């Protein structure tokens, strides 16, 4: 207990689950990050063991609003002749645990509803002609299967769930069955914290680049729960340090390995093994002392915490996390694939529900209601619904377009053209909310291509990505097209229509295998371009060469694209060209 860093991943997992079982609802809950498998199942089972007879509710992927929040119960309503409410999953989880399968794939709506319930502790229902307020205080277990390049868990939900277990890092012989049960629940509320505990936790969150105060607030409660686990009435600075690891450090991808592995090798003086970290953080280690001086206020860091969390590692982690968040569009995955059951609802229409169309219950009942007096006498049923009363829901499905810019940022494409492209993209984005379109940006230069901006609607993010677009080097056209194709495929998979805008002078000189051979590079580029045509993606080639020529037209033909030579284009006319195509 004296050295909190000496724990293995398995021991940390046991601690996390124990804390969850003590005060899960007060700290939001736990994220089980990793692929499905026996280890994750064992963690899940351990979380469940404390739930006992309380509710344990699974929220499946693609849960619809009626099921999640509740709504009108048709059968009961008809039987009782008055509106009867069907409880939703969130209300049924009251007092227990809601389990989110594939949490990262849940739609923004589901995630936001859960956040709302976590904040308020109750659920207000205003749907289909019924009104209700139901208590819904529950803890959440979110299973996050996202890999590096997937969209991560919805940020609002992530920051409300205090704990994390990285299940892939656990040993095969994990024994997690013997965790504390909820027997001493609520005692943790009385536990006192050391005077500087909150300051320490805030400092560590700052170091890790966690902007929201929510994780630090939860960490204070985690420290209290840890004290209860150890049978104490007051939390010590060790508990606070442990809470920082459980709630703050383990939240960062690969966070726990930072405690075990030695710091990066590029450090000249070998850093002390964290396991044997000296109690004084700013010792003789010069690099470390410098790092400490760099960040203001860090010298006040609680000793135990500072020893556990070498500053350079923290900076590294924060940078990694930022890089990760840059390549993803949080929480939006899965939200769009709902075909024509989404969009702007139109007035319900008389009709028989079948296949894609759903019964609009409320409208049906409303249609039937005025006739009840007359009909009931005739048929004997309590509520008589005739075929003529049936109404089906209609939606005006919106087609979303994702415009993917594949931009040549090589030396041969003048820097000035790059500025024009930036301007055009910003112009498009400024209007894209209105059209509900998304914009993505792929740039290729030197030897490789990069997704600078994953499909987004956010002007804030787009501006940041654009400002950082560099130029110069060779022209790896084939690389650029290949990455662009990936982005287009992803958009198509989401149900969006990809629209590719290639901006280049087509002077390809880097082949796919990296060799500087113009002939081979051309051949590769044409081969990749044919894949676009094969998939039927719409595309537009803007020839940015000073003298528009044959090479670019060849690529355009392979893409089956429209070809637009624009030797003196300005941002405005470029955005016009793209819009005319989207229309």
């Amino acid at each position: 207990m004296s050295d909190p860093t000496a724990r293995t991943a398995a021991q940390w997992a046991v601690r996390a689950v124990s804390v969850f079982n003590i005060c899960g609802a007060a700290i939001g809950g736990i994220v089980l990050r990793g692929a499905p498998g026996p280890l994750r199942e064992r963690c899940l089972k351990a979380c469940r063991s404390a739930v006992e007879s309380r509710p344990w509710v699974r929220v499946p992927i693609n849960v619809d609003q009626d099921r999640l929040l509740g709504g009108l119960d048709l059968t009961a309503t008809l039987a009782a002749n008055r509106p009867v409410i069907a409880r939703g999953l969130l209300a049924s989880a009251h007092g227990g645990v809601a389990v989110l399968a594939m949490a990262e794939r849940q739609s923004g709506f589901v995630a936001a509803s859960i956040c709302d319930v976590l904040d308020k502790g109750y659920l207000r229902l205003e749907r289909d002609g019924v009104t209700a307020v139901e208590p819904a205080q529950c803890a959440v277990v979110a299973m996050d299967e996202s890999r590096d390049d997937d969209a991560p868990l919805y940020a609002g939900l992530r920051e409300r769930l205090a704990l994390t277990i990285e299940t892939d890092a656990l040993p095969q012989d994990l024994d997690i069955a013997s965790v504390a049960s909820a027997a001493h629940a609520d005692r943790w509320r009385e536990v006192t914290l050391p005077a500087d505990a909150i300051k320490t936790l805030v400092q560590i969150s700052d170091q890790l680049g966690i902007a929201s105060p929510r994780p630090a607030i939860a960490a204070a409660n985690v420290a209290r729960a840890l004290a209860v686990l150890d049978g104490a009435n007051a939390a010590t600075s060790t508990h606070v340090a442990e809470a920082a690891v459980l709630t703050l450090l383990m939240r960062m991808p690969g966070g726990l390995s930072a405690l075990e592995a030695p710091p990066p090798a590029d450090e000249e003086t070998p850093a002390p093994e964290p396991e044997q970290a000296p109690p004084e953080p700013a010792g003789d280690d010069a690099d470390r002392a410098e790092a400490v001086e760099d960040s203001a206020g860090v010298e006040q860091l609680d000793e135990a915490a500072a020893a556990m969390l070498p500053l350079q590692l923290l900076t590294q982690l924060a940078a990694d996390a930022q890089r990760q968040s840059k390549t993803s569009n949080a929480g939006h995955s899965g939200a769009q694939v709902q075909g024509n059951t989404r969009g702007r609802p139109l007035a319900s229409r008389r009709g028989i529900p079948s296949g894609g169309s759903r019964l609009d219950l409320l409208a049906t009942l409303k249609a039937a209601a005025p006739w009840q007096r007359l009909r009931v006498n005739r048929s004997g049923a309590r509520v008589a619904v005739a075929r003529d009363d049936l109404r089906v829901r209609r939606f005006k499905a919106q087609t979303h377009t994702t415009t993917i810019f594949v931009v040549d940022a090589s030396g041969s494409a003048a820097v000035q053209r790059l500025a024009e492209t930036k301007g055009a993209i910003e112009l498009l984005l400024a209007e894209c909310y209105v059209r509900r379109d998304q914009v993505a940006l792929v740039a290729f230069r030197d030897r490789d291509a990069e997704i600078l901006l994953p499909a987004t609607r956010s002007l804030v993010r787009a501006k940041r990505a654009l400002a950082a677009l560099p130029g110069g080097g060779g022209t790896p056209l084939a690389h650029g097209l290949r990455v662009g194709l990936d982005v287009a495929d992803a958009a198509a998979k989401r149900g969006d229509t990809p629209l590719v805008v290639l901006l280049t002078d087509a002077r390809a000189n880097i082949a796919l295998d990296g060799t500087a051979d113009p002939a081979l590079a051309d051949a590769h580029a044409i081969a990749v371009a044919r894949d676009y045509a094969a998939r039927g993606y719409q595309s537009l080639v803007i020839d940015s060469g000073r003298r528009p020529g044959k090479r670019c037209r060849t690529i355009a033909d392979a893409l089956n694209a429209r070809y637009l030579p624009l030797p003196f284009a300005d941002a405005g006319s470029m955005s016009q060209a793209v819009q005319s195509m989207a229309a």
Partner: protein
Amino acid sequence: MVAKKAFPFTAIVGQQEMKQAMLIAAVDGSVGGVLVFGDRGTGKSTAVRALAALLPKMAVVPDCPYNADPVTKDCSCGLNICKKFHRSDAVAKQVDVPVVDMPLGVTEDRVVGALDLERALAHGEKAFEPGLLARANRGFLYIDEVNLLEDHLVDLLLDVAASGENLVEREGLSVRHPAKFVLVGSGNPEEGELRPQLLDRFGVSVDVRTPEDLDERVEVIRRRDEFEQDPVKFCRRWARKEGQIRKQISLARERIATMTVPDSVLRAAAGLCLALGTDGLRGELTLIRAARAQAALAGASSVNEDHLREIATLALRHRLRRDPLDDANATVRVERAVAECLG
């Protein structure tokens, strides 16, 4: 049903601008809605929910579904409840100002009101059941995560908020009832931009950011932690401060009726809008109204340039025409114009 107690408004650390905007809206609802846009975990929802507990109580006609004001007698609901009340010598009821939370997944029929399902089912009667808009009359309507609400609902809300009246023409029902409320919306820019048409319908807008000062952040968490440990005790400790603000709002509301706006201030406001190139007159109108509320809160008897300066960013920053090629953010641009026009 045990709802969590609201965190006291006065105990919110920092976020002066957000608190100021809410107070202005509380003093003069005609300022228009409040849009709070910014980082996660900055107390956006907390502030709105705290407002309900803070506002002075208001008098209503008992049982009127639209919270009609017993003094002005202007309930246009056409129900007999109000008429009966005014004929009798019944006493008005004091209630909390409604702060209606727009739940996620709300359906349109519950927002505008619709056929009363219960009466339709049980008696086959056609009757109107008021929705959220009725409940929010004379109060606040809060939408968390504006970006997640369906577009057509947002449009509808803005329309009603601007006209102050909800008109229902559906299912053979034809109902018109007052719906004067202050719309408060919150959201996160990372989730996507709001349409410009929508932005400029809000009266004032606030940009909230995570505090960068360490001590401030520590204080945020310390208070939150204390509150969670014992909400009742925490609220009792802040009761006096809450009382002071409540009084400040009441006084400001009285004062605003007699508030004078000198010509020089009107000219300065017009000059400011001209310099920023805001479209239409909505900007100027909001600017003057917000300055008036600000002056009333400060205890002044007439508006001066300082009041204008204090609220200029709130009232104008979301009305600038976006120039995608100009990277300066709106706040900076307004501040620049204020410095030029008001010295």
